[in-house]
């Protein structure tokens, strides 16, 4: 029995992205996505003794290095590990997803040429892998916070889902665009590494975010606070959101000056909501690009 949903028409015209229909198709192919994530995780840690521990070592090494750097620079952020990790984990999810995602179509050229499935699954599977690491790392961070007797605040923790949602949408949007462009221009993956390096330091992960706010307050070209320009970097806003959610207090006890951006929780939520909205629009646009180009992936590879 042939049902209407199975009728597929293919023409020379690149089809227009109809989000709901596409989401339904992706859902129908979810088995591939899950299997690819499983495969990636398995392959990543196959024949390694420590296995998944490796995904925890990266933040630990970062933590060691930057604790030392912050000590040397007299950074004076109390509870620095919690501060650093709350931003770093979000950054790691983003950077791993886009780096691996950008390569995902090329690396699976053989599949793309031989099997039909919605191509979005390839970058999505890399995001899935990064998400598994993110969840593991976040659990460890929570354990660390509990172990050090951290004072959880429900009011700020409520920011976490919003920050996470924004991060996820922005990551998916960037991965779609990068993976599609990388098929045509292999420069993308090299550019990306440089770009991510710059991007990392323009995001308040290692240094106190209040520090930037304070420094930039002096510059007000055209009567505009340049700190807002800094926050136009979506990841800066997202990281500020994660920090406010997990680190919580703007000026913790023992700090000589504020650590986090000196604004209200409501203000952070508003900024995040704005970035989230922008990310959704961005996702819609990059998804359309990806969808249009994906019909020719098999040929371009």
């Amino acid at each position, binding site marked *: 029995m042939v049902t209407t949903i199975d009728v597929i*028409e*293919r*023409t020379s015209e690149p089809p227009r992205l109809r989000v709901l229909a596409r989401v339904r198709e992706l859902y129908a192919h979810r088995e*591939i996505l899950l299997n690819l994530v499983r*495969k990636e995780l398995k392959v990543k840690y196959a024949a390694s003794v420590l296995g998944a521990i490796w995904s925890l070592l990266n933040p630990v090494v970062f933590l060691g290095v930057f604790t030392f750097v912050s000590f040397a620079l007299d950074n004076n952020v109390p509870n620095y590990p919690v501060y650093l990790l709350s931003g770093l984990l979000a950054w790691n999810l983003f950077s791993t997803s886009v780096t691996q995602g950008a390569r995902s179509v090329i690396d699976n050229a053989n599949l793309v040429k*031989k099997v*039909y499935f919605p191509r979005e699954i390839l970058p999505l599977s890399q995001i899935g892998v990064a998400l598994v690491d993110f969840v593991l790392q976040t659990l460890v961070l929570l354990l660390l916070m509990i172990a050090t007797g951290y004072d959880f605040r429900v009011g700020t923790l409520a920011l976490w889902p919003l920050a996470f949602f924004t991060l996820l949408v922005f990551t998916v949007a960037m991965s779609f665009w990068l993976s599609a462009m990388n098929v045509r221009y*292999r420069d993308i993956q090299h550019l990306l590494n440089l770009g991510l390096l710059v991007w990392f330091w323009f995001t308040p992960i290692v240094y106190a975010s209040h520090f930037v706010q304070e420094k930039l307050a002096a510059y007000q070209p055209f009567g505009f606070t340049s700190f807002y320009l800094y926050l136009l970097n979506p990841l800066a806003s997202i990281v500020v959101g994660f920090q406010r959610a997990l680190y919580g207090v703007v000026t913790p006890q023992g700090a000589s000056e504020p650590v986090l951006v000196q604004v209200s929780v409501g203000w952070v939520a508003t900024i995040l909501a704005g970035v989230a909205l922008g990310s959704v629009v961005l996702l819609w646009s990059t998804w359309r690009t990806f969808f249009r180009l994906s019909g020719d992936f098999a040929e371009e590879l």
Partner: protein
Amino acid sequence: MASTIEVEGVSKRFRLYREKPSSLKARLISSRTRAEDFWALRDVAFAVEEGTSLGLIGVNGSGKTTLLKVIAGILRPTTGRVVTRGRIAALLELGAGFHPELTGRENVYLNASFLGLSRKETDRAYDDIVAFAELGEFMDNQVKFYSSGMLVRLGFAVAVHVDPAILLIDEVLAVGDEAFQAKCLERVRRFQRDGRTIVFVTHALDLVRSICDGAVMLDRGRIHASGRPDEVVRELRLLSLRHDVDYAGEEGTREIEIVSAELIREDGSVSRPVRPGESLTIQVDLRSNAPVDDAVVSFALHDQGSHFVFGASSEQSGVLLPRFEGKRRVRFNLRSVPFVQGKYWVTLGVHARDPKRVYHLQEQRYPFEVVSNGDRRDQVFIPVEVEVEDL
């Protein structure tokens, strides 16, 4: 009721780059990249009705696989449209997506999901798949330790357990040992009985004749013939005979030239396939450009693999040609063709009694085909007369 697969006016153009600009720099420097258009498909149109099987045949490079990929949705047509009704499973390569680091079991699940099986469906089919592949004890080994034969069997096994409305098969039934092939063929027949629609791409013409309801033959991207499998298969045989003619070599000093030659069948036809035991006349028209005293005309037969199978000359047959001047016709009457099946090529030569002095030689130039009725296992044809006598 609409057809399960409709292909309408489909063309596919590939751009062949001398060196594909895959970096920004290359794109920027050479504003116009040197690309040649290659039309892998041109105006292809046909339909496949529900529950029927179509064979897609043609010589290498005729566009069969491209067409299959367009139907499967892997490639987008440059013009035209394709409509499919029902879930598609495309077997373009066995074990596409097998990953060496994963175990056989994990690869079954991964591969099955590419072919559209859900986890539950794979769970249900898993034992069958393992039994079919005969790999029970190896399923928890990584497939990087598998032999290529084992990989093929596992790929097959997953492939034949998919449950689609439309099955696209590219040449994959041609591998594996004979017993395994028979097993797979049995599976295909079951798919047919279950009313599934199948499109085969294959070089196994006998397979097309025995299991397909229809056939389409492609030649350089266009439909050359379509219709009943046996007729389309015959078209392909004829076409490949004609193609081969272009490659024949010629040499000689041309004191005597071969002007033309024909292979005349028993009934006077010069083109139809020959049946075993029929007669065949090789008729050669010659012209001399200078008088020659010791001319010998000879012919040789080669099979599909260019193996020499038989040769004879006027001299061996006890005929001495008189002094050669002007035009002359020589006929070799082969009283009974001993071949059973296949393509053969006739080499014609005219030379001196010392065969190193070649006047004119046309190597494997004239083809003919031998076709038997039914499915015979004979290697040669021997005319047999039966006599019965009461004693």
